[in-house]
């Protein structure tokens, strides 16, 4: 569980400024426009360049899931019913060119994320802000006021008007869309080649479409206004497009610049873990993190025989989580899941197991349920999955499920689809298969962005991607979601999310399988390791190499 979410902390002595940090990544930073990034709280590399109204707390373990102020003086001041949020900017904030950061810059940054040219961000601004659903961004809408639901009464104040109460607005304000963009410097789709920095580093080189980045200190950033980022290294060099096996090999070898290297997107795989197992020196250089994520079997009750709750329950009983976990990399890389919510406090995790199958499944119970459902002689079903090799939808997990269900007399045919095909199918109301392997990760550590898109009946999408796979439209559930959203006390909200999760779980609309665990290796000269329990990322803003 979350208990072992700790990082080793790196080398002993206190971190100092200076040196060059190398980041070895597999995916290039092809999108570097704050409007286009879909990142959980501006993590990873962009957080070095973009400051946002609020940000995540940069600490190991559970405290890392907290939201804290960044450009703003606090995490936001809600109106009574949490429909209006007001922020005040800190003093002395400057862009990399020395010009001051104003509330208009932040408003403009948000506005441009509505432009079709800069699509790619998360949907919350569109859904929450008044008028967000019709606004088309500043390139089309040339009116002076822009998006009217964002008020900038003065250079330091921002007022957001929301359609309905949203207690989690401070968490939304961590996203890069809340980073300031100076209107004068905006050159549309080309902005990402040289985004104007508000953070501790600025981009001096961006080649190969984000393949190779060089960041150096932003002299106009002031440590005084930013307690979250440390900015120890003088230079940060990001090299991407690398094979994950090679990244881990380089980190473990640590020759030359690789000694002061980290990765922000590559985990240790099972084989690497098996090998590190014997090596004390390497073991010390492995950090663990969590990202709220659940892999599950999703039912579409519109499709026979999954309309029958007994069938769904039988499958829930039959699943062997031990093999599934092994298929996902073993107990160090995956934890068995029996709740839909990830097993961290911030999500409102409340232990529950509505269909206790034990570690390895309960085929007896499953058979019995099938008999009750009228499938005495077993059952033949199809399991859809993506052929992409990632933990969430991996073919290995599918075969593990197939094997387990065999014991309960259920014959599973696997339908592996090309990833795009898979996504198009499972997210379309029309084509959605009866049973598929799905996964869901939160945009921030709370139950809201976890449960609402999947189980809120009003979020069933007919003409675009639908995530409510069971097409659940239960007034009681909808009502409870609305109620929790009104809470601005996030701890209280967490408890209620947990209770709701338990209630939904009993409907057997999905079978939670496991939550992934991230193991990250870092170079031998790297100090001050913080691995976020918000997104599981090794935080480059904390790392020191001297």
């Amino acid at each position: 569980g979350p208990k072992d979410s700790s990082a080793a902390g790196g080398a002993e002595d206190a971190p100092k400024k200076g040196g060059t940090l190398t980041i070895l990544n597999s995916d290039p930073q092809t999108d570097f426009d704050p409007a286009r990034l879909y990142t959980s709280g501006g993590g990873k590399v962009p957080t070095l360049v973009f400051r946002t109204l609020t940000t995540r707390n940069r600490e190991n373990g559970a405290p890392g899931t907290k939201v804290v102020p960044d450009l703003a003086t606090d995490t936001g001041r809600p109106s009574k019913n949490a429909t209006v949020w007001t922020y005040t900017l800190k003093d002395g904030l400057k862009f990399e060119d020395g010009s001051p950061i104003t509330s208009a810059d932040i408003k403009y940054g948000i506005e441009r994320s509505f432009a079709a040219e800069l699509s790619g961000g998360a949907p919350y601004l569109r859904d929450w802000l008044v008028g967000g659903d019709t606004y088309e961004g500043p390139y089309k809408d040339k009116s002076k006021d822009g998006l009217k639901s964002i008020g900038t009464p003065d250079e330091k104040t921002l007022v957001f008007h929301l359609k309905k109460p949203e207690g989690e607005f401070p968490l939304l304000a961590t996203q890069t869309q809340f980073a300031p963009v100076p209107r004068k410097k905006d050159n549309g789709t080309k902005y990402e080649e040289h985004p104007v920095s508000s953070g501790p580093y600025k981009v001096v080189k961006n080649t190969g479409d984000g393949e190779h980045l060089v960041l150096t200190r932003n002299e106009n950033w002031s440590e005084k206004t930013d307690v979250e980022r440390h900015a120890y290294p003088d230079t940060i060099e990001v090299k991407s497009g690398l094979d994950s096996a090679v990244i881990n090999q380089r980190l473990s070898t640590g020759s030359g610049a690789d000694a002061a290297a980290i990765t922000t997107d590559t985990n240790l795989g099972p084989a690497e873990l098996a090998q590190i197992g014997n090596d004390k020196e390497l073991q010390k250089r492995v950090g663990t993190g969590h990202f709220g994520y659940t892999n599950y079997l999703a039912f579409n009750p519109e499709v026979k025989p999954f309309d029958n709750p007994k069938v769904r329950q039988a499958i829930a009983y039959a699943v062997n989580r031990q093999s599934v976990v092994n298929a996902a990399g073993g107990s160090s890389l995956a934890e068995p899941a029996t709740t839909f919510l990830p097993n961290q406090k911030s999500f409102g995790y409340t232990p529950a197991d509505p269909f206790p199958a034990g570690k390895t499944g309960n085929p007896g119970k499953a058979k019995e349920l099938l008999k009750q459902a009228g499938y005495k002689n077993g059952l033949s079903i199809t399991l859809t999955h993506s052929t992409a090799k990632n933990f969430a939808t991996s073919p290995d997990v599918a075969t593990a499920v197939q094997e387990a269900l065999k014991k309960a007399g259920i014959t599973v045919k696997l339908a592996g689809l090309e990833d795009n095909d898979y996504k198009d199918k499972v997210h379309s109301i029309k084509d959605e298969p009866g049973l598929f392997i799905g996964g869901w990760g939160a945009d921030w550590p709370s139950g809201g962005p976890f449960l609402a898109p999947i189980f809120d009946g009003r979020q069933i999408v007919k003409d675009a991607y639908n995530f409510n796979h069971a097409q659940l439209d239960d007034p009681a559930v909808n009502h409870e979601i609305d109620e929790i959203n009104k809470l601005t006390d996030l701890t209280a909200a967490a408890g209620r999310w947990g209770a709701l999760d338990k209630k939904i779980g009993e409907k057997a609309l999905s079978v939670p399988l496991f939550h992934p665990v991230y193991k990250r290796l870092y170079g031998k000269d790297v100090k001050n390791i913080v691995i976020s329990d918000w997104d599981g990322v090794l935080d480059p803003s904390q790392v020191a190499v001297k």
Partner: protein
Amino acid sequence: MTGYALRRLGGALIVLFLLSVLVYLLFYVAPGDPARLACGPRCNAEQIRQVQDQLGLNEPLLTQYLHFLQGVVSGRDYSTGTGVLHCHAPCFGLSYQNDQPVTELLSARLPVTASLALGAMVLWLLLGVGTGLLSALRRGGTTERVLTVLTLTGTATPVFITGLLLLMIFCAYLQWLPFPTYVPLTEDPEQWAWNLLLPWTALALLESAKYARLTRSATLETLAEDHIRTFRAYGVRERTVIGRHALRGALPPVIALNAVDLGAMFGGAMLTETLFGLPGIGQLLVHSVRSVDLPVVVGAVLAIGAAVVLAGAVADVLYALADRRVTLT
């Protein structure tokens, strides 16, 4: 010769035209909507429509294709939101995913791929043809057996295994070589070669067996010809007989295959490129196929096509030179 060059050029244009049509058609049946991918999973229908408009995906396939052709011939203008981006002819469009002109993306990667492919080619020819000749010379001997087993192992082992092994041995364990990064030839030729040594080796190991076997077999075939008897009867050393006279007969298939491999290397070395972190066309292609980024896919395929055509033409000229009885057609 000029006639031949003109004919080949015409042929090349037709090949490229066909390739682009083919890719457009394949794209049409391939799953995935680029607008949706650019927009993100949680865009609503209206937003997707806007992005589709922006990318011109709402138009009929034929119109899209005609626009593409028009761009190739006379360039195109694209809106950046705040201004206009003129994409000069030949313009293959902008990437759906990140609005970069395809020509720019390609021209940044072409040197990498070309360095990789050409260097590897030199190595696999040396290794392959050398091994082939040596095994023709030492037929049935231990040397030949060892060489054969060696090159065959290379072929039977996927490049992701050989490559990883090479990296582990030379970069991690012995630390004789740096983990490869691409250094442009123009910047530092020594570092360029040094960094590419392992990827070249990995590819050469993979490819050389083909050349070794072909060279050996064709050499042995030529050895059965009457003219070989002449040189042996004049006391020419077996080494020379094989290396000079028998090899010459083995050249046509080797040249032909090399042209194919070299051309394919421009698109097919993606595993090597990824493994060794070389930002080449192969990588770009994989990525853009996955993200249904049509302009980039078309651009990359056309680049590969051009390489294939060029390599083929060079091969034709080479065998006309190698065998004067063959005329260029």
